[in-house]
């Protein structure tokens, strides 16, 4: 169980490859640090995925290139799984809080009381509005975000269709955090158009087909 001993043994087993492999480990750690510091959520996610890829590559390379004990490979793999699980769950759990801060979002109940009451009947989620004229709605964590631009544009029935659509996403997300984590770790995204269809079917059931289609017509592709 002497980890330092294992590492130096590995250095010898890997011989000329040791430098190459450790370079990837250093790169992976640097990328994870960078992804924690980046402000733009999209770049942050990309860096994070890159960090995962380099980390995984380094572990795989160690496993295939070494000639002696396999214990260190196992340690490394477990460390990788533990760290990425914590990071992914942390991101999922706190992503909506991050968005609230970034968008300076406020509870939608304070501006349109019925929105929060309507969503309460469908799932447990908070509804927030944020200051932007661009019509937009999305779900993150256990929160639904809608822009003032969307509130301006849609009437009550259409807004209900959008809220039901987003509420479905939240129900769906909370049901399967493990699956989406696995999808993320395997670098495969779940089939998005199919999810959107199911969310739309739910929205049509709650708010009616007419409301859903007129909302879609007014703001095609702005609620996801």
């Amino acid at each position, binding site marked *: 169980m002497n980890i330092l001993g294992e590492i130096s043994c590995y250095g010898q087993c890997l011989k000329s490859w040791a430098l190459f492999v450790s370079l990837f480990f250093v790169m992976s750690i640097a990328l994870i640090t960078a992804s924690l510091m980046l402000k733009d959520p999209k770049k942050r996610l990309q860096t994070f995925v890159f960090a995962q890829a380099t980390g995984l590559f380094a572990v795989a390379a160690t496993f295939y290139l070494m000639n002696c004990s396999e214990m260190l490979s196992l340690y490394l793999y477990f460390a990788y799984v533990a760290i990425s699980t914590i990071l992914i769950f942390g991101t999922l759990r706190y992503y909506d809080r991050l968005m609230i801060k970034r968008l300076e979002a406020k509870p939608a109940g304070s501006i349109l009381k019925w929105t929060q009451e309507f969503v309460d009947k469908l799932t447990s989620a908070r509804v927030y509005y944020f*200051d932007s004229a*661009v019509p937009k709605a999305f779900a993150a964590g256990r929160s639904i975000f809608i822009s*003032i631009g969307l509130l*301006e544009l849609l009437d*009550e029935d259409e807004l209900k269709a959008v809220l039901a659509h987003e509420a479905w996403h939240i129900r769906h997300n909370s049901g399967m955090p493990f699956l989406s984590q696995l999808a993320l770790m395997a670098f495969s995204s779940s089939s998005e158009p199919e999810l959107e269809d199911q969310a739309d079917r739910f929205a049509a059931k709650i708010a009616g087909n007419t409301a859903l289609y007129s909302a879609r017509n007014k703001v095609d592709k702005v609620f996801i």
Partner: protein
Amino acid sequence: MVKLDQINISNDGLTKFFSPIEAAILRALWSEGEMTTSELTGKTNIPLTSVAGTLDRLVKAGYTTRRTESINGRVRYVYEPVLSEEEAASEITTKILDSLVQAFGPLAVENFSKYSDKK
């Protein structure tokens, strides 16, 4: 949005300093004072999808302010220009004169006085 590196001397009127959509919005606000989003899209004849992002930018850059109103269960923005047309013109002129003096020094000042003598 009146950034010196984006000034386009060959354009006409306000579009020397603003994008065409920014200019159309500012012109509408200067002539009407307060306007809602739908009044703006109606007056400028530009669809909401093109206007919305520009409105966010104009607010962020400080050329317009907006407040949120809630009437009969409908929420809407009301826009107002921050500077009057004259104030905006004087701000733009000062910026450009400053940059000319910074680049050419006394020569620029000499030309300004020649220009005003001609008038």
